[in-house]
């Protein structure tokens, strides 16, 4: 299939309208009208993504289907891939356009499950590092909501050391045979494709023996296991790859050159909340407790007028305003080059720490009911489980420890940590009892 046969972006709109999009004000008016006409307005409570098991599997699948629909609506009305080149069915517009769209969509449904990791880092990596054929094949489908991508990056053995991948790819003729295990893929069970980092050479230092592949999730040999979190959430998956065969045409970047791709991959992952490729209502993309909930919590606990409660609520709100302002500063700084790209880690660190604090404040405000609640306790229910899950904000998407390493070493230029895996063949790197496959 060539792109000629595919539906065109913006087909539901006149060419004149599309042309007028260059002007930001006119784009904003069109976006506003589109959003109000086609999207469902959501309750403020829905805007914050507390990590709770809220939906049944059936409901989850229905939500994914609806998000694919919405993404297709974006596509048909010329709002998908605003910053992707037109040759891949994007709109070729500016980051400012994406920002306008993100402002206008505040308060409305949006295809959140399709943004990360599909648009960033996966599509962003494809755009930068993929072959022309790969880009023409996948990017339009991603923009239409037809392909949802996962990142096969973390491994059970790996923790923060993503370049220490043990998943192995061995070449056989025009194919590669992959074996190993990947973990922490969110929603892999309803997704389509993956970008996979694998080891192709064990006899060189770790960064020099990696290669990136494109992998269909329903390929033979991919076994998917849903991980149960302590609160019953089953969003995350682990995959076991057994003799999975991938054609060499689905390799991204050079053989053993995977870390060149990987560096951009991690950059796009960290940029998520400031990425020009991602549609996300301004001010979201934050997985912690909504400070707005705290007022309700304190009221339900009967302590809203207590000065200590108000101090805690004020603290949470201050952290939230600081997080927002900081995100803006970092985005501006990286865009203008006044801050190094690695500064995204500053936002990641602050957000993680702030989120755990706000979650703890909710737990404090809920008092004893946080730990033992009745069905009828309303907003006080489940806050204890949120507390149990608190650290996820400092773990998911790269730990805060890794962010601190990046900030001190890459932003402040401090000496790097000694690593015992840098200048020796990867097969000789000490791995310890807990890092076996």
């Amino acid at each position, binding site marked *: 299939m060539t792109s000629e046969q595919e539906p065109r972006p913006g087909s539901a709109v006149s060419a004149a309208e599309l042309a007028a999009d260059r002007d930001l004000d006119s784009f904003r008016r069109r976006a506003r009208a589109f959003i109000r006409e086609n999207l469902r307005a959501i309750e403020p409570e829905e805007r914050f993504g507390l990590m709770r098991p809220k939906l049944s599997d059936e409901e989850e699948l229905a939500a994914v289907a609806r998000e694919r629909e919405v993404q297709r609506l974006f596509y048909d009305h010329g709002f998908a891939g605003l910053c992707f080149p037109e040759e891949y069915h994007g709109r070729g517009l500016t980051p400012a356009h994406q920002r306008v769209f993100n402002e206008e969509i505040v308060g409305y449904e949006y295809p959140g499950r399709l943004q990360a990791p599909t648009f960033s880092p996966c599509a962003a990596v494809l755009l930068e590092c993929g072959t022309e054929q790969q880009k023409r094949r996948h990017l339009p489908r991603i923009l239409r909501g037809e392909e949802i991508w996962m990142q096969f990056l973390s491994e059970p053995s790996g923790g923060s050391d993503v370049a220490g991948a043990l998943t192995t790819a061995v070449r056989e003729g025009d194919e590669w045979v992959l074996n190993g295990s990947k973990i922490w893929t969110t929603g892999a069970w309803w997704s389509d494709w993956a970008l996979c980092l694998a080891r192709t050479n064990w006899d060189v230092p770790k960064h020099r023996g990696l290669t990136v592949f494109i992998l269909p999730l329903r390929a033979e040999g991919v076994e998917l296991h849903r991980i149960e*979190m302590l609160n019953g959430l089953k969003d995350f998956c682990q995959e076991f790859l057994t003799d999975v065969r991938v054609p060499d045409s689905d390799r991204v970047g050079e053989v053993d050159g995977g870390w060149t791709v990987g560096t951009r991959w991690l950059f796009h992952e960290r940029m998520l909340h400031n990425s020009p490729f991602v549609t996300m209502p301004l001010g979201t993309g934050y997985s912690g407790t909504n400070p707005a909930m705290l007022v309700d919590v304190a009221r339900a606990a009967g302590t809203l007028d207590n000065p200590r409660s108000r101090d805690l609520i004020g603290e949470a709100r201050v952290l939230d305003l600081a997080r927002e302002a900081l995100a803006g500063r970092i985005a501006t700084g990286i865009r203008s080059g006044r801050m190094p790209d690695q500064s995204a880690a500053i936002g990641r660190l602050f957000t993680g720490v702030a989120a755990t604090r706000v979650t703890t404040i909710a737990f404090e405000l809920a008092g004893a009911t946080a730990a033992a609640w009745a069905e009828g306790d309303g907003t006080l229910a489940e806050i*204890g489980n949120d507390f149990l899950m608190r650290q996820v904000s400092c*773990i998911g998407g790269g730990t805060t420890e890794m962010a601190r390493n990046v900030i001190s070493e890459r932003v402040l230029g401090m000496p790097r940590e000694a690593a015992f895996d840098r200048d020796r063949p990867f097969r000789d790197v000490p791995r310890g009892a807990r890092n076996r496959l």
Partner: protein
Amino acid sequence: MLLELSPDQEMLRQTTARFLADHVPSDVLRRLRADDAGFDRGYWAEGAGLGWTSLLVDERHGGGSVSGTGLVDLTVIAHEFGAAAAPGPLVVTNVVAAALSAAASADSAAAHEEVLAGLLSGETIAAWCPPPAAGGTGEIVGTADGDDIVLTGVARPVEAAGQADCFLLTARLPEGRTQLLVPAGTPGVSVEPLRSVDLTRRLGLVRLDAARLPRAAAVVGEPGTADETDEWLRQLALVIVCAETTGAMQAAFDLTVRWAFERYSFGRPLASYQALKHRFADMKSWLEATHALADAAAAAVAAGTPDAAELASAAKAFSGDYGGELAQDCVQMHGGIGVTFEHDLHLYLRRITLDRALYGTPADHRLRVADAFEHSKERA
């Protein structure tokens, strides 16, 4: 837990630790989340045979300590309960047993000897409904009707409410606040289960809707004196809970130290990274301080010294806050695996989190400490 146990205490500790390791290893705990009671009554009765319910009971009534200070002995068991995240109504049965033993010794309530014997054998489960001053919510009011008392009100959260054969509660009667023992089957008594963060410990709301019971059989201790008894029971509960939290902290810490040695990242064990080493050092200081404060509280409450209430509240406030921080730091050290259901870490995190909320939150207890402190300063 005390650094130096007597040989008898050490044997008590080991017996319980081994029993728990055999009967409720972590895969059993995980399965118990689907169990209505959260524990098996046979398991409990066997444990009672090891002394779990007898340490606060006078020898005259079939109890007895191994060291002469039963409360301290009990903290040894509670510590092992925490370290195993073990199921069972340890706090409430012991609190009720202590109350019944004291009352029986005062010769006022011989009627409860049978219940007490059941608690000692483990065949009877009793739940304590903590009054508001001990971190419970709701109030119970009793009116006299001939030889009966008619009770109305609610109490929550009550540990093992759904499993209890009887409840010890404090009701406001015409003659003052009085402790009563209420059989679970009494008409008008109902239990609504609560959900909790713990896998095995069940809590409930106890509702009394004109529940009628004969005064003679119900009253525990001297009518109108519950304020004093409640304060004593409150301190006992705090001491037991703090010991349990300490055990859970110790287990989570030990588990995570082992992980740090065994887990490699960038060719080095996690334990070799200074940023993590320093956080382990902080955790170690919180852990040892919790041990120290919990032991100080146990000694003070056992001896009934004037600072007992302040120390018990200080231990509860400290272990609640720092226990939570320690457990969360352990999660952070583990990464994503630390919040999966298959991992053991959350068993301790859950226990610490629930213990923190029961019988007064850290914030409640900081206020108590501030009150006691201001008061003692003004006297000085």
